[in-house]
């Protein structure tokens, strides 16, 4: 168990710094596709971070949100691409 705490002390700051940098890019992105790309990367990485937290807190409920979050980021990409090409969202 001691090795696991050491691993978490090394890994969690890497993820937090990466989330802060993604947030900076999402706030100052010049075009809308930069914002969507930054939010997309941040959602996939939050899904991975949520899986790590599920092992850390020994909880099975956190991992069910990760699947939904990954699929939601994919839907965000597809709807935004549809809006930019066809100027409408939907069928």
């Amino acid at each position, binding site marked *: 168990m001691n*090795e*696991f705490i050491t*691993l978490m002390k*090394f*890994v969690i700051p*890497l*993820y937090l*710094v*990466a*989330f802060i*940098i*993604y947030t*900076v*890019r999402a706030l100052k992105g010049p*075009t*809308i*596709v*930069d914002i*969507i*790309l*930054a939010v*997309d*990367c941040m959602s*996939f*990485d939050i*899904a*991975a971070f949520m*899986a*790590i937290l*599920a*092992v850390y807190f*020994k*909880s*099975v409920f956190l*991992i*069910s949100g*990760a*699947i939904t979050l*990954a*699929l939601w*980021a*994919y839907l*965000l*990409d*597809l709807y*935004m*691409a*549809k809006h*930019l*090409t066809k100027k409408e969202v939907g069928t």
Partner: protein
Amino acid sequence: MNALFYIGAVLITIGGICDLLGAIGLLKFPNFYVRLHAATVGTIGGAVVPLFGVAFLALGMDIPHRYAIAGASFVTGIIVLLAAPAGATALAYAAHKARIVDWKPKVDHLRGERK
């Protein structure tokens, strides 16, 4: 603590470092099409590799519901592995089609072909 724990720990560490490098690249690269490269490092290296690592790590530890955590993180890794390149390709196609990114290429062989 057995061998599966250490395989998972190595994969999670590689994933964290790739995530940080992808974030720095996404902040520093000049335009959208170059930033797409750093985004691939951030999603495949920073999300898929740690999710597979969490699957091995949960199998190697003695915690309750470890098979559920390992299976769900493996499924999430497969979903991200399939969805992230498709979403990035759709975004690149939309940005090229809507012409909202100004880029200054050195060579563009398809300039005359574009309608």
